[in-house]
């Protein structure tokens, strides 16, 4: 985390960096895709202040629960402490099942001068009742709720957002996500991966004492949509000038105040905050429902093990496009706006996928993408577990027995579960310092001429066991002082971020904005997405 170098910003930056470092060290949050479930939701729209990592508070509007949601409605059930305040940004993630009739009653608790508000559910055929007619749908004025109902026809990830004075209301925060679970997940998915690895990942998860945080076994009624983990990322921006202008109108006293928001200019647009799930880095890597962010309950902090199929639910909620670059591998796009992309021919659970492979998944305003990410290390040409021989003797007793696809999946308890066996025992280093394979192609640089990052696990190798062998018990950086400790997590860290790189700043300060670290964790490390 290298920072900027200007005198005028150094002091400010140091404060932010300190906050960042503290929050990084205080926890190792993980993510999941939390929300509330049911068929009938009572939402309201209300105003509150959200916070940004530069210390500012931003007056915003958001959807929330009219009354506190019942404890049993929070999903996944394996995350404790769920809450649904009267205003949150993004709005509550609504988790429903395909084919259900969903009813959303919207109460307008916004300040009077904010005017009416509404919700659009793009992609669904909506019936609206109550309220008053508006341009795009029926709208709720204060004291006059409106009810929307629709059949959740398509599985996958969907967005919802305001259909009233949208240029202002969406900017202010009135948007959220709907996750529609498939009506009949393929049986092959209930046990784990289908053809490649029946049940192996689920078994490995159980063996290592890990909890299941998935909302379902599959994203769609399709065999290739099985997944092991899932994360929801909503991208949006904030131009603080617009929020200040709205706030001034709301707080205006006297006889010459504007009666509505018509005078708030939403152009020119100059965002200063770039957010994932309503938070900027590093706040997005704090836990879900963290008490520091009472109106920003959702985080963005993906973790996974090698070989796990990770479902990415990506939504563009702002007015700009953001090229979301996933370091580490390509993403197979499954669906856009909940529409599965399949090869021509008979549509069924086994129709081949037709979505593209992308290393940068653009977020488009209002559009959603469901995609599968997986990291295996296949093709690196060196053993990421540091296996091999040194001075004529094997450095570990680990074996790698390839399955039909070349991975070691037959021993779910092995620390090198899902290793790509083609690279097993291939050394990286020519003459290693520690006890890892030797005779490889490269010589690592002198540790004295490099700078170590806070997510550097201490060695090129995956896992605490391999890192300890590679660099000894006191690796550089010293264990316990980094976000990805060599003696604890010891994962491979990747940056997932907007590649319009100026958007990984928070109000002119790097690092910040639309940025998070994804961790590929060794099998021995227990991923707890409830944290």
């Amino acid at each position, binding site marked *: *985390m*290298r920072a*900027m170098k*200007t005198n005028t910003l*150094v002091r400010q930056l140091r404060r932010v960096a300190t906050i960042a*470092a503290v929050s990084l060290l205080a926890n190792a949050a993980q993510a999941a895709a939390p929300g509330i479930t049911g068929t009938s939701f009572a939402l309201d729209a209300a105003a509150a202040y959200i916070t940004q990592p530069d210390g500012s508070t931003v007056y915003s509007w958001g959807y929330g629960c009219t009354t506190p949601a019942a404890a049993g409605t929070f999903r996944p059930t394996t995350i404790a402490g769920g809450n649904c305040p009267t205003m949150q940004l993004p709005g509550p993630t609504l988790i429903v099942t395909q084919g259900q009739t969903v009813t959303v009653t919207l109460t307008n608790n916004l300040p009077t001068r904010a005017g009416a508000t509404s919700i659009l559910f793009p992609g669904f055929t909506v019936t609206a009742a109550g309220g008053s007619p508006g341009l795009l749908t029926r709208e709720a004025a204060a004291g006059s709720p409106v009810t929307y109902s629709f059949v959740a026809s398509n599985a996958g990830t969907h967005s919802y957002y305001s259909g009233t004075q949208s240029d202002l209301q969406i900017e202010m925060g009135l948007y959220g996500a709907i996750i529609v679970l498939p009506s009949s997940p393929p049986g092959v998915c209930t046990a784990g991966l289908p053809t490649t690895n029946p049940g192996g990942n689920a078994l490995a998860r159980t063996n290592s004492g890990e909890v299941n945080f998935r909302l379902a076994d599959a994203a769609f009624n399709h065999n290739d949509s099985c997944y092991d983990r899932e994360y929801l990322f909503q991208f949006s921006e904030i131009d603080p000038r617009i929020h200040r202008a709205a706030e001034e109108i709301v707080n205006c006293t006297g006889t010459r105040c504007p009666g509505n928001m018509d005078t708030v200019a939403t152009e020119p647009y*100059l*965002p200063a905050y770039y957010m994932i799930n309503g938070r900027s880095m590093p706040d997005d890597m704090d836990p879900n429902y963290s008490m520091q962010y009472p109106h920003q309950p959702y985080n963005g902090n993906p973790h996974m093990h090698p070989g796990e199929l990770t479902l990415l639910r990506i939504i563009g909620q702002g007015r700009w496009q*953001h*090229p979301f670059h996933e*370091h*580490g*591998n*390509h993403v*197979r796009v499954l669906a856009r706006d909940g529409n599965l992309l399949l090869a*021509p021919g008979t549509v069924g659970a086994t129709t*081949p*996928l*037709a979505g*593209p*492979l992308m*290393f*940068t998944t*653009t977020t488009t305003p209002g559009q959603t993408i469901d995609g599968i990410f997986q*990291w295996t*290390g*296949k*093709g*690196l*040409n*060196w053993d*990421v577990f540091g296996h091999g021989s040194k001075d004529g003797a094997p450095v570990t007793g680990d074996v790698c027995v*390839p399955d*039909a*696809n*070349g991975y070691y999946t037959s021993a779910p308890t092995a620390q090198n579960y899902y290793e790509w*066996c083609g690279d097993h025992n291939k*050394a990286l280093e020519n003459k290693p310092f520690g006890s890892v394979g030797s005779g*490889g*192609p490269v010589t690592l*640089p002198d540790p*004295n*001429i*490099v*700078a170590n*990052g806070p*997510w550097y696990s201490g060695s090129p190798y995956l896992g605490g066991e391999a890192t300890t062998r590679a660099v000894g018990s006191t690796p550089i950086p010293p264990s316990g002082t980094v976000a*990805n400790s060599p003696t604890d997590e010891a994962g*491979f*860290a*990747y*940056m997932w971020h907007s590649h319009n*790189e*100026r958007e*990984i*700043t928070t*109000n*002119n300060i790097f*690092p910040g904005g639309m940025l998070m670290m994804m961790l*590929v964790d060794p099998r021995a490390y227990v991923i707890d997405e409830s944290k």
Partner: protein
Amino acid sequence: MLSTRFFGSGIAAACLVLCALPVAAQSFKVQCPTATPSHPSDPADAAANPAGGRIKCQQISGGDGFATMGDGTQTYLFGFGPLSGLKKMASGLPGTDVQSEFNVDNTSGVDPIFIGAPVDQSNLDVSAYSFNGAIGLVPDPQSEPTPGALTGHVDPRLIMDVGVMNANQPAPLMAIDEDDEFFLTLTNVGQVMRPDLFEQHTVHFHGYPNASAFYDGVPDASIAINIGGSFTYYYLAPDAGTYFWHCHISPPEHLQMGMVGQIYVRPRQNRVATAGATAAQLLQSLEVSNSDAVRNPGANGVTCSDILCTGQTPAPTAAGVAVAAGTKFAYNDGDGSTRYDVEYPIQIHGFDPNFHFVGMTFNPESFTDMKDKYFLLNGRSYPDTVAPGTMVTQSTDGTLHASQPLPSVINIPVNGRALLRISDLDVTEYQTLASLGIPMRVVGLNARLLRDMAGNDMTYLTNSITLAGGESLDVILDATGYTAGQKFYLYTPNLDHLSNDAENFGGLMTEVNVCTAVDPSTKACSL
């Protein structure tokens, strides 16, 4: 964690960078083994190595320099420059060497190494320059068992002579083939114009499938090389396609300031067609390659073994074509559909002159106000995009440096095909590039062939493509049915991007010429 300004006097700090580091504190070193476990011998002829691949090496500097904009303005860069393959770079080619080209003793006396190389300061000529080896490489007096071997030991004076202020725009072009092992040495020579900075630099191989965190170039997740040191990145070439690379230190700043380059990977299918191939042979080679990627003799080689098609491409459902000897392909397509006659790297970028001025003058940087005013194809704006040869820029020391080696003029042989490898590393906004005349066939997106998992062709014809920073795609322009002498344009319909700062004509534009013949290496057009 924070860079702070330790020195009130820039001169003192500059002296430290220039004088002290090379003498006492440097740890420069290059790595390019003559053999590895995967390539126990490096065959001079790739055809003699059917398993495929060779040892490829390149050295780059991380530092600063200047480039010339379309309106003549000298713009300050944080940038990468070539420290190997200088002759190739000056010829507009990828600077990547095979190990025998890289491992050449700098003291052999036959090749000149001087400040500003490869530019002859007296007549601006670069054509006389002939050295492609690693700058700085000299015999190692302490090598075992025999002193005086080439071990990667370098003379830092040579590296500083060439590497200081030699930033290129775009950063050095790299090209490798599938099955190659690639050793990329980044040598941090410091930023002479910014002695207050102690910047590390890194290389992020953008889009590499199954990247390792260690070699991913993200300083937060790995290590980053300090000034005065070298770090060698190691990758087995990934699946064929158009990738790009950039520094990942403070990306909003270092990318805007110019630390962006392209790397592309050629498919192993090129080696199948050295003597020509029938459609059946192309298909068979793909299926064998797919099966090899799974390491399962029972794999059918027709479909992918995993959802990301790692190392594989679904076999085509449509019939292929026979291809002539020496045909090149963008991908392992199995049907010849991505064949081309001549290839052009096209990197889109944008510069905000205010930010670059601030970057040179120690002022606070603003990210929210960033607004590009120069729009660049391979580091140049129109009309520089069609100027032949290397562009040179005078640096603050009065020396001329080769700053922008890559023209973007696209010459296509009549009835032939040009492959445009288009990547975008703009840090502020989306860019559109349109073809006036020959339509674009988009064959690849994000370094993967556009084909669904059933093998159906998903490529498409269009007149324009739109990319964000961090995306790439591959386009084929097919000049079948056109006439030699025809000239078309590749330009941006973002019409405000057809400008060079205050000049209202220029920007993101270049020319497409239909030629009687095109030399595939020099890309010269004969009419």
